[in-house]
């Protein structure tokens, strides 16, 4: 992306020679890009358009029915208890998940940055969970946090048995519309699993960022009499802001679209305490054959992701220019 020649640079090159070579290069580039552009146009943007169209239709049985329904599907969707619970869960999950991933990633990166022996071993240990798919993570953590097996066998002996993902309570549970607002306790188990999986990613990002900060900055701070603590909080961490921003964007779209972890670990959960829009979409579309309503969920998800990702894209474009 950043190696693309800009108009400002072009006149610097020898004119005649460059023009022919560039146009040849450009031609080649176009040749190589066109097929994938066409495919993306059809299979990404075309299908998004198709999904949008379906979401406005009356296709709510196994037989396609594309007659116009307007916003009916959306109105009905937001009235269902399940979708309201989904939105609550999504907000709670997203905030806690991202906060934990950033905090733990930063903490581990700073610790690893202390030039300790066997650093690469530690790095691999922390990065390994990332190599797994969420499906595996879900199955493993489902077992670990099962009220009758895993860590609970140990906690049971100490008298601290915990329900983990079987607890259906919502704290503090203010009722609004049909649902209870607050923190669904069962969601904590899911957040633990998701954080376990993704902390390695944020650690890698932060570590790379830390390594990118020139040693001279620290030296200078030390010369000014700053303590190691002050150096971290006043000099180094502020430099990592763009990385934090990147991690947030990456984690945001993972958490908004999360499906496989929930599907394998808990399912919707009693009273939908661990349900997410993507799981709801799968059930609505393929179990109940409510295709139009399923498409409406997909579009709502897309819009939610867009709300967060588009500003980032705009920002990164500005950064390039």
């Amino acid at each position, binding site marked *: 992306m950043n190696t693309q020649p800009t108009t400002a640079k072009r006149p610097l090159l020898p004119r005649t020679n460059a023009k022919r070579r560039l146009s040849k290069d450009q031609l080649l580039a176009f040749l190589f890009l066109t097929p994938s552009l066409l495919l993306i146009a059809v299979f990404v943007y075309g299908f998004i358009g198709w999904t949008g169209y379906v979401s406005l239709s009356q296709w709510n049985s196994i*037989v396609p029915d594309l007659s116009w329904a307007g916003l009916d599907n959306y109105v009905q969707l937001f009235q269902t208890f399940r979708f309201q619970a989904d939105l609550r869960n999504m907000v709670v999950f997203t905030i806690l998940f991202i906060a934990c991933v950033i905090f733990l990633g930063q903490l581990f990166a700073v610790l690893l940055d202390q030039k300790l022996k066997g650093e690469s071993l530690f790095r691999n240990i922390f990065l390994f969970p990332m190599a797994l798919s969420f499906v595996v993570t879900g199955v493993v953590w489902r077992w670990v946090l099962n009220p009758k097996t895993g860590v609970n066998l140990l906690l049971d002996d100490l008298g601290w048995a915990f329900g983990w993902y079987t607890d259906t309570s919502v704290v503090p549970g203010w009722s609004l519309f049909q649902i209870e607002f607050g923190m669904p306790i069962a969601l904590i188990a899911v957040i633990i699993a998701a954080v376990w999986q993704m902390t390695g990613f944020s650690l890698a990002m932060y570590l790379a960022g830390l390594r990118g900060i020139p040693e001279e900055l620290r030296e200078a701070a030390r010369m000014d009499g700053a303590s190691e603590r002050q150096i971290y909080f006043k000099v180094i961490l502020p430099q990592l802001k763009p990385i934090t921003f990147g991690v947030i964007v990456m984690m945001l779209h993972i958490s908004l679209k999360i499906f496989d972890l929930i599907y394998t670990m808990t399912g919707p959960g009693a009273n939908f305490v661990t349900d997410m829009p993507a799981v709801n979409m799968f059930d609505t579309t393929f*179990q109940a054959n409510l295709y139009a309503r399923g498409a409406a969920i997909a579009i709502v998800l897309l819009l939610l992701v867009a709300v967060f990702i588009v500003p980032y894209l705009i920002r990164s474009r500005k950064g390039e220019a």
Partner: protein
Amino acid sequence: MKKKFSLWTVMLLVVALLLSACGGSGSGSEDASGDAGDGGSGKVKLEIFSWWTAGGEADALKALLKGFKEKYPNIDVVNAAVAGGAGSNAKAVLSTRMQGGDPPSTFQVHGGAELFQWVNAGKMSPLDELYKEKSWQDKFPQKVIDMNSKDGHVWGVPIDIHRGNVVFYNKAIFEKYGIEPPKTFDEFFAAAEKLKANGVTPLALGDKNVWPATMLFENVLLGTIGPENYAKLWTGELSFDSEGVRKAAERFKKMLDYVNEGHSSLAWQDATQLIIDGKAAMNVMGDWAEGYLVSKGWKPNEDFGWIESPGTTDDFMIINDSFGLPKGVEHPDAVKKFLGYLGTPEAQAAFNEIKGSIPANTETDMSGFNEYSQSAMKDFKAADEKGTLALSLAHGSAAPPGFLNQVNTAVNMFVTQKDVDSFLRSLKQASSQLQ
């Protein structure tokens, strides 16, 4: 900036690769089923689609396919089973394939509303001739043929009949506390109270997938309002806010006070396991639970007993698996041969003995079946004569999937909130999907 960006790109690529790897494993089963049968050139390929992938179900399917291969060595049978709880994944794959014009040669479907949605969509071919040729009209019970008939045609060949209203119980626990198996709701609650006082969980439930809870509710419903009124619910003659349904909801609520902790994290097998472990006394389940108990070395009438769920002594909640002939398959004649074989007494015996269900063909020799299946067969015949067979809602026979999905949602909420009024309101609201 440059460095960070290349790292970014690498990270993105890694994530993209991981994601595509996950996606690949999901669709792998489809690919495998498509390629598996190409070996025998010149042979006709037949793809049998189901969600029988594990335990007794998978073994039963294997026995069935083996018998078919021996009879028709020239037909290549591909077992295209898709794994996933209660067919959830299989149904998703099936709708995609059917709508994409790539139907499997034949597929497993529950008789009743689940089959009819394909019939209504015009995706199935009628099987009237096959029925005539094999004179099945006299061999299958009328009610089962009805479950597979619509608009004057037959669309499915029944392979098995399951019973949905059974309470399996741990005999040792019942003997220890001197409790008789409960026949009515009063007896059930008295027994439950006694068990609870002795520190035994009275009722095992595993509703990680919501259907076992829906199944418990439909049993209470049947036991409370009786098979006639129960049937009227699906035709709209009886409303979901009627007195009987309210009473059933209240009984259902009371029952939930006696179930095990953490039930929403358990599958139905886990609930049955609680009975084996002696941690719970009773489990309301279909008779596939009997297959599970036997597979764990338990003997019918020795280690475990069974009785109809409270209030349904004369009733038989019926769940039936059928296979049909989708339109546009490559070798309809071969499919008809397979369907013809499915209905024969020997195929039904081979399959059902292993699966724990009872055969749909009344001419099947029952001597190889165990004590439980024999008693289920007797009850089925009695209920068939009395006209007290009831269609299961939880398994898609009584009502279309859109309605069932909303009932599952309502039950899922009810299990925690226990709010009878809002439960009935959701059911009533969902019934607009029935027509």
